[in-house]
């Protein structure tokens, strides 16, 4: 009976591990899956952006390049037609002025987006449930290139007409 027991426990453990791995791969890995995991410590502040680019839940929130928190949720507010980004800030950094400025920036050329906070000058600090008023949207490279080419095209057409004057 002893070998039978080992056999059953071994097989059970293997099948359990295998299905746990499959469950992880199918639910946790794709962004569409269900998320488990407890709430982490920290306070939440929100900010509204016109365009968040490809900012994702879990992207870092930084001040002067130092990570102070992460994006905890993103949703679209259909009243003001803006993206509302909720950020969880580490409780160590509890002295961020209320009039701070949040902007969405890109890490490297191909890297992911992150939220950068530049401190304001007020003596009152952001608290849990606080709101950052001043924001700047993500820089969308395509629209920038579009603008550049539009400006470039009008410039060259100007220079072509100029000598006729």
């Amino acid at each position, binding site marked *: 009976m002893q070998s039978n027991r080992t056999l059953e426990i*071994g*097989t059970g453990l293997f099948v359990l591990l295998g299905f746990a791995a*499959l469950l992880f*791969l199918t639910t946790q*890995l*794709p*962004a569409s899956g269900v998320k488990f995991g407890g709430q982490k410590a920290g306070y939440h502040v929100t900010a509204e952006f016109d365009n968040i680019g490809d900012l994702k839940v879990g992207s870092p929130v930084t001040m002067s390049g130092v990570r102070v928190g992460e994006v905890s949720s993103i949703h679209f507010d259909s009243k003001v037609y803006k993206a509302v980004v909720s950020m969880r800030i580490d409780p160590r950094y509890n002295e961020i002025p209320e009039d701070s400025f949040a902007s969405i920036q890109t890490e*490297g050329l*191909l*890297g992911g987006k992150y939220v950068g906070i530049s401190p304001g000058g007020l003596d009152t600090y952001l608290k849990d449930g606080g709101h950052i008023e001043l924001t700047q949207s993500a820089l969308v490279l395509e629209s920038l290139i579009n603008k550049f080419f539009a400006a470039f095209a009008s410039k060259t057409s100007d220079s072509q007409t100029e000598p006729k004057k």
Partner: protein
Amino acid sequence: MNSRRPGTYLLSGVRRLGSVTIFLVQLLIQCVPALGRPRLLVMQIYNAGARSLIIIMLSGLFVGMVLGLQGYDLLRRFGSEEALGTAAALGLLRELAPVITALLFAGRAGTALASEIGLMRATDQLTAMEVMAVDPLRYVAAPRFLGGVIAMPLLAAIFSVIGLYGAQLVGVQMMGVDRGVFWSQTQGSVDLHDVNEGLVKSLVFGIACSLIAVHEGYHAEPTAEGVGLATTRTVVASSVITLLLDYVITAAFL
């Protein structure tokens, strides 16, 4: 067999292919009654799966860690270390986990299957079963085949998860890629489609590797040399077929 003309080689190759195909059909017919014997099946899942667990987990960890190191070094040149999670997850899920698991499976479980059945053939155990009107295909070959087919996708999934952990260990803990970015980039780029591709691959590899191992053992020359030859041919044929099928399935999925 002593003739060295290319036609003979070709003919023997075609004959082997035909013999494997016929064997597969016979096995599949016997798989239904084999399912009615769960104890035999559990025994074989244990042999093929649970006993390969340590080697699979260890290999997965190191493959993931190497992926983390190489991926980090490569991506840093483009200033996009954040894509490390994506590279590691897609590489593991779609290619490395199914293929390396199949190669390890061929070496660990395939050889064990081939030599076990080959030795049964050599010591006339299979003939004895036939004499007693017990079908060795049903009681020896089919449960081993099924056990391998069931074990392979589970082993590949475990390999993927451990590998991803290894990549995370190197990328996040050692190299300082941001943890949140690592996981959010991974989750943003991995699709259920990618998981499916890995699953289909490992299932097909499981069928191929188990079939080759059982076939080689079952049709081994009933001598010591024959059993050894069957074991060697199992590893060689399984590895080559795995890599060949991998290309075909990848092309079909893209």
